[in-house]
């Protein structure tokens, strides 16, 4: 079974540091959203969110001190999420070879969905 015996106790100092980092991250993400970075706004916002999430998992949720088996479970969860998002988005992002809309005047325009 798992090798860890005594559970690791994270000190309040660490918790406070993580709290501070999370608050700074929140402020930063709001600030960054107001600057026009084009398509990188979303990239930056998600990067900050991911960093915040990692902090929460590692320290608040003791992911850093958990047995390997638990860490594997966490990684598997995100891996599968990535499968779902990645493979679906690759379909949508490669759908440009479809017929050009201008040839389709005959068809009711209210039927159209953009992709």
């Amino acid at each position, binding site marked *: 079974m798992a090798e860890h015996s005594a559970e690791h106790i994270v000190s309040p100092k660490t918790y406070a540091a993580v709290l501070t980092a999370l608050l700074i991250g929140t402020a930063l993400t709001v600030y960054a959203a107001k600057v026009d970075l084009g398509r990188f706004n979303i990239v930056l916002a998600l990067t900050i969110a991911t960093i915040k999430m990692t902090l929460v998992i590692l320290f608040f949720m003791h992911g850093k001190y958990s047995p390997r088996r638990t860490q594997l479970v966490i990684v598997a969860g995100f891996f599968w999420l990535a499968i779902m998002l990645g493979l679906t988005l690759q379909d949508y992002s490669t759908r440009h*070879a*479809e017929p050009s809309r201008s040839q389709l005047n005959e*068809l009711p325009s*209210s*039927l*159209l969905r953009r*992709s």
Partner: protein
Amino acid sequence: MQSQMPLSPEQASNFAPQVDNLVYFLLVVCLFFATVICAAVIYFIVKYRRKTPDEIGVPIHGDLRLEIAWIALPFPLLLAMFGWGAAVYVDYRHTPADTLDIYVIGKQWMWKLQQPDGRKEINELHVPVGRNVRLIMGSEDVIHDFSVPSFRVKMDVVPGHYNTMWFRPTKVGKYHFFCSQYCGTDHAVMGGWVTVMEPDEYAKWLAGSSGSGDPVAVGQKLLSDLACNTCHLPDGKGRGPSYNGVYGSQVKLADGSTVLADDNYIRESILQPNAKIVAGYAPVMPSFQGLVTEEQIVDLTAYIKSLKDQPPPTKPGTAAPATGNK
């Protein structure tokens, strides 16, 4: 139909032999493996059947070489199946240039097809042999699927998307087409016939009778079906203005401006009745967005257009008191 039981449908398009050859290849490979496995199982169970009640088998735990062999050896065959299949599919999804374009609209539970010259058909499709045909398909309601087994082609018809498919008929004849994606109650009867004709026959057929009927007559019927004429009385005394002489005239609006009553104006008045209110009338008409199709709007417009020489009511009627109506 043939009296004996066929194992595959007729080959009537360029894709039919391609798909059939592919299926022969897979059949041969799969039959080989199925035979090997079944033969081995039968041979083993006969040969190594239990002879005495307390006998046990030879403890063989496995063989790495064998495992590697039966992972690695069939793999090229899988790749071949994949590659060949993908080649056919990519060909099918890439329409060649210079096609005969036919529009297909699926709705519960019928197919409306339209030839390039505008001629419409219901549950019937006429195409010339030897010509690349492209179907451009949309759906008015749920997902359908246009499938012609003898051509070995099918494609989903999805609302909100346009899907296309193409084929080149290679044999004159009449072939079933089906709706292949379950679409509700009468899914099973949402089909019809594709008629493949010699090109000159096709040309003759096209030159024959006109489309599905006189749009004016269709529009008139639709108008009463939708109960438009219960408000839009010819004398203008109803809750809505009269159609007589409207088309092409300058209409006075409630806000004092005027607008030319053209196709777009009529279309808008049907779909967004409250966008422009005719002077003297109340904004009481409901929107017909979603209730009428584009095609029907065309028919309605045609009918209203036919009334443009009718004398308009001498003076606009006063709007009936809008109490408790919709």
